[in-house]
């Protein structure tokens, strides 16, 4: 823990916890939200530190955090993919889109690929029903997805990432 404290990450974490002095379990969700805002996800270490701060067992915190869809446990990838599973997209075949992405990237929702390039998230309606089935990569929307379109999108993104390196 001492090493974590010396990093910038450790300092940010400490700073967030200090916003909630003598806090009880009612501060749990606000703290987790603050952490996710800053770091983009909740790590094992962060949860352990929150537990120590609030005198709560980590199993309880993990239980609460997994109850809500908003919390992630892996850092976001360079390309964060959101697959819309709202009603309109569902009717237009978003289950197949999700399956294609899982297969192509060998990634499950909530996970981040080992190279840190892609992370996958399932979301409810993102309000672009006219584009169904739709996915969003970072701030870019991709409309009327099909298997071949998905393959093309990822090929482009991978190439783009390589040229950046």
């Amino acid at each position, binding site marked *: 823990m001492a090493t974590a404290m010396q990093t910038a990450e450790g300092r940010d974490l400490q700073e967030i916890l200090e916003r909630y002095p003598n806090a009880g379990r009612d501060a749990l969700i606000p703290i987790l939200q603050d952490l996710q805002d800053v770091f983009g996800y909740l790590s*094992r270490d962060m*949860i*352990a530190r929150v*537990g*120590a701060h609030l005198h709560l*067992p*980590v*199993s*309880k*915190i*993990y*239980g609460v955090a*997994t*109850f809500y869809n908003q919390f992630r*446990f892996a850092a976001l990838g360079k390309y964060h993919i959101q697959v819309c599973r709202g009603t309109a997209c569902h009717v237009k075949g978003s289950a197949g889109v999700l399956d294609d992405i899982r297969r192509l990237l060998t990634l499950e929702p909530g996970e981040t690929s080992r190279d840190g390039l892609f992370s996958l998230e399932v979301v409810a309606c993102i309000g672009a029903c006219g584009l169904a089935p739709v996915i969003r990569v970072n701030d870019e929307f991709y409309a009327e997805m099909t298997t071949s379109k998905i393959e093309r999108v990822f090929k482009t993104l991978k190439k783009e990432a390589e040229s950046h390196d």
Partner: protein
Amino acid sequence: MVNIVIDNKPCEVPAGSTIYEAARSVGITIPTLCHMEGLTPTGACRICVVEVEGAPGLVPSCSFPVSEGMKITTHSPRVLLARKTIVELLLANHPDDCLYCIRNNDCRLQDLAADLGVRRRRYTGARNRFKVDVSSPSVIRDPEKCILCGKCVRVCEEVQQVSAIDFIGRGSSTHIGTAFDEGLNLSSCINCGQCILVCPTGALHEHDHLKEVVNALNDPERMVVVQHAPSVSVTIGEEFGLAPGTDCDGIMVAALRRLGFDRVFDTSFSADLTIMEEGSELVHRIQNGGKLPMLTSCSPGWIKFAEQYYPDFLDNISSCKSPQQMMGAIIKSYFAEKTGIDPDKIYSVSIMPCTAKKFEAGRKEMLHESYADVDAVLTTRELARLIRMRGLDMKALEPEGADTPFGERTTAGKIFGASGGVMEAALRSAYFLITGKNLDNLEVKAVRGLEGCKEAHVKIGELELGVAVASGLKNAAALLDQVRNGRSDLHFIEIMTCPGGCIAGGGQPLSTDLNAITQRMQSLYAIDAGETVRASHENESIKRLYEEYLGSPLSKKSHHLLHTHYSSREVML
């Protein structure tokens, strides 16, 4: 008191009781899968629903308080249909492999399905698929059989103050697991097995060692030695339909011989040995300004708890190994030398009321040169399975005595099985060690009973010894917090992981029924009252062991074989 009507019968019940409790008090049993006496009701399973006149829907009786004039129907057609539907829905997400299940014929879900007349599958569909968590040396968890009643979560939190597990996720993907789903072995789980005792289904069971033991028994090259813990003889009978508390000591010894064990020893003997070492250690600490209060070290769940939550107390914990490990150590040293058998050829088995003993036997501190002190640990339940597998009739066996040299015990060792027993046994011998005389009255009633925390002050010569006994780790933690905050009148504290001590251990016959546990306890004290050798220092075999081998308590040899030290443990708390 309030007046209510249950099933058309007017009755008077205590105000503030729940409908479930009120019904029970007038002889009506409402079925439930998630209710636990003494713990917070959650109304999770909905099996206990009843009809209350005027209420819009069915109400969960386990968490609904009675009120004046309430009219309740506990088994109306509407209620029965609701219960049956709930069970059918639970079964729709259940593996349905009762024939292969460890809890076949001893399962509350199975019972309910039968009682409610579930005889065909009404709902089918996709089931949840989860991996079995086999990571723990003590407790196996199969989330597919879990019905999410939450009893294990509550017992882990409210009785043991460990909270190794909780509900993870939500909706249809909800399951119970450890933080980050990392598996019990990496978690703060202390292996006590209380969760197994309360589980209504086969979702939790002990890590089975029967196969290894049966293989050893069938190996002609091996000498298979067994020891049985003090509490096992008064609980094993329940597995064969005998009344709780029936002492089956001699019959169990006979059964162990029929099973093929070459020597049958009694862990109560090494409990006596523990008292000699631990009593001497206490006297040594008191007379030489050692760290006080001294804490007992017999209960391996408590030891892991201390390593995780109270590392500042590790030096207070007696350096004595537990009776199981002491017996294991002297079997592979003194006994091996005396009988001229290569310790590598000895396979040492223990029968324990405890799942944490499986963890303890595998600890690195318990390895002696190249081998483990104890090779396999069976719970009381596993022994019963082994006996049934061999078709032994417990009612037809003639009682037999345990083998020398470790079969002779005093009743001080025997009462180790109940909370307060170690303390009482230790006081009997510590008094003798300090004054050279025996206590006038050997029975220290103040430390007996099933209360979570008991205290006494005992005068030994000039010294007033402050002692306390805690069982259930929540109670132990409360006591330790007092000591942390400066309480200084205590010299010696006994801590048992399971509430009530080993008689209610996680390896015992599946029941948390307070009556059964009381019977088990009374049986141990009846054995104590009925015999003449009641103090460990009067055990002739113990005296011989010291004369021939160990020298004296706390000798170099004793330290080498019978003592150890623990260090703090890094886990996610």
